[in-house]
């Protein structure tokens, strides 16, 4: 594949390997219209107890990346390549049964729609009990007691009564809490949250983010938060990976992303959002055009057709229309996929972010 970045030293089982390390992950789906490269050469790593936010618009591959880590993509007919190391164990090479044993115990996932995890016919307590007994040798009574404790812990009011409720009897925020309780019942080390608050109202969203933060502090869980909401990212993340058209285009610590973003796409996103904390702007500064079709990606930089700055790339640095840029380091913990020279990127970044601040 062109554009796949190089992975440094494929050392087997290095003790230095971070808690979660995804290396050169690629996912393909065969469709009637051709092969869709949903994820292309994605690498990231995450230390224990930290939160990584993966940001991107619909179709950017952020959810598929998460599903690949959870071992859910193969069942959907996807072809997964690359390596996924969780706590010293490589997951992509495991059998489906082995991954299933890890899922729910070592790693768990919560979704935008709680009804995708909750069975509509069973009482929520029974579903949590089942999740406990699937992974641990515990008696039913003890499991139920544990389920009740967890429901209280995630802030379900009148948990003694609600443990026997069916999912449809609960509000959206309550269901989200039940799903979180179920995901965390076996104390997983890794929690992947795919747009966990997108369907919720802001006041409930604040409650749920607060809950995830608190539980993460208590259990030391490592979290991958997938979202399109840059406000949520600023609230929860330690690091941010921005995805566009199946690849990571910029990755940096959170404050670096907001104050020193370098990739024109990230800057475009920051300029697109209306801001509560600044006065009303006359006009927003949106990214022109639409995201590319995943089947017909531009041959060069995937963002070039919407980029305002591609003509500023000097001859010597390459051609945005034909050369796929690689994700290269540009400062501490900061990497960027862009052909613009570093100085030019920093200059553009400063101008854009300053003008955004100036609007207030």
């Amino acid at each position, binding site marked *: 594949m062109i554009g796949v970045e190089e992975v440094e030293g494929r050392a087997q089982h290095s003790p230095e390997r971070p808690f979660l390390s995804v290396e050169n992950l690629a996912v393909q789906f065969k469709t009637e219209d051709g092969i869709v490269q949903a994820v292309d050469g994605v690498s990231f790593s995450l230390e224990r107890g930290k939160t990584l936010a993966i940001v991107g*618009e619909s179709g950017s591959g952020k959810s598929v990346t998460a599903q690949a880590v959870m071992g859910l993509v193969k069942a959907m007919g996807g072809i997964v390549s690359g390596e996924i190391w969780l706590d010293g164990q490589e997951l992509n090479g495991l059998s489906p049964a082995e991954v299933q044993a890890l899922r729910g115990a070592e790693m768990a996932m919560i979704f935008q729609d709680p009804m995708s995890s909750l069975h509509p016919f069973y009482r929520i307590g029974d579903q949590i009990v089942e999740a406990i007994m699937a992974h641990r040798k515990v008696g039913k009574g003890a499991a139920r007691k544990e389920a009740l404790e967890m429901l209280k812990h995630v802030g379900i*009011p*009148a948990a003694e009564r609600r443990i026997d409720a069916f999912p449809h*009897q609960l509000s959206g925020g309550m269901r989200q809490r039940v799903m979180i309780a179920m995901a965390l019942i076996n104390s997983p080390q890794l929690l992947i949250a795919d747009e966990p608050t997108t369907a919720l109202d*802001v006041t409930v969203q604040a409650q749920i983010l607060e809950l995830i933060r608190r539980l993460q502090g208590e259990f030391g869980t490592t979290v991958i938060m997938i979202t399109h909401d*840059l*406000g949520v990212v600023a*609230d929860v993340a330690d690091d941010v990976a921005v995805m566009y058209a199946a690849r990571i285009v910029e990755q940096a610590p959170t404050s670096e992303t*907001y104050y020193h973003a370098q990739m024109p796409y990230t800057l475009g996103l920051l300029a697109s959002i209306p801001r509560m904390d600044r006065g009303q702007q006359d006009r*927003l500064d949106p990214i022109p055009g639409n995201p590319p079709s995943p089947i017909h990606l531009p041959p060069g930089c995937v963002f070039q057709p919407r980029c305002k700055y591609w003509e500023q790339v000097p001859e010597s640095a390459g051609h945005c229309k034909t050369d796929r840029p690689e994700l290269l380091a540009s400062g501490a913990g900061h990497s960027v996929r862009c052909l613009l020279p570093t100085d030019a990127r920093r200059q553009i970044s400063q101008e854009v972010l300053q003008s955004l601040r100036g609007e207030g």
Partner: protein
Amino acid sequence: MSDGANGQILNVTDLHTYFPIKSRGLIPRTIGQVKAVDGIDLALASSETLGLVGESGSGKTTAARSILRLVEPTSGQIELDGQDITHLNSSAMVKVRRKAQMIFQDPYTALNPRHTVGGIIAAPFRVQKVEPPGGVRAAVMELMERVGLNPEHFNRYPNEFSGGQRQRIGIARAIALRPRLIVCDEPVSALDVSIQAQILNLLKDLQREFGIAYLFVAHDLSVVRQVSHRVAVMYLGHIVETASQEVIYAAPLHPYTHSLLSAIPIPDPAQQKKRNRILLQGDLPSPINPPSGCVFRTRCFQAQEKCAAEIPPLVELEPGHKVACHFPIAKPPESVVVSTTEEDEAVMAARRDSGPVDSGAMPH
């Protein structure tokens, strides 16, 4: 500008929309009512945008639909461009729709998949039997051009367009007959942020060009701020606070507005960490059985005995700033504010002590 009687496009007085709940069985009886909209007043002038915000279940969408009589209001009066349209029959309403149009949330279901884009945008001309100068086709192509679509795509079908482009189609159809009022129901909430900004800019440009008044219904307060001149905050069928955009965001007085604003994460990590937040307990109560007195009292940090006994009227506390609260407050007390930097122990302890509020979301 909002009070100018001359430029007034829309005047809604004491609007109620209740949905009956029927019993099961052979002869269904009405056994209750969902009070989706429970007595609201709205006024809107030309070239003005009124943002109607609230959480799901607040009644904002029902209010918007009732105003265009897509849902029949139970009582109240709706005056559009000086004409009382509350009780017009459906053929008379067809004429009214020339002046008042709607843009929907979901660009995927708002367009008929079997009609070409040209046909969809031409529908208002057909229905209203209007022959634009130069012919329908030319007018449609001009509209497509105006909203940023390629006029050559006249014969394509909706499935060939992305979400943002479909929303542009919906907008082209809505502005075809140069309406005085467009009701926008969550027009950008299904769109990606980069596309959302394009659509918001387009709506603003069209307003400037044609003097359209927008009733802009949305749950996203940042989006509402970007487009609105005035904002009305709804909670459980009632307007609890309304003021100019500047005042609502900078100096709200209703406890609910405070909570709502404080809950929105700001895309700036340093600021977000410094911010103080009010974490509201529980969910929206059921509109079938709303709390007595003030509807917000079950989740309110200001609530006192009076709030359960008396319904607070919407009163003008400052010129143009109306609040429905017995105990309006300029700055929430320290005790209800959660600082993000302080760790959550204190919060959780307080939450356990006070006991969670049963929201009544569970049917009994």
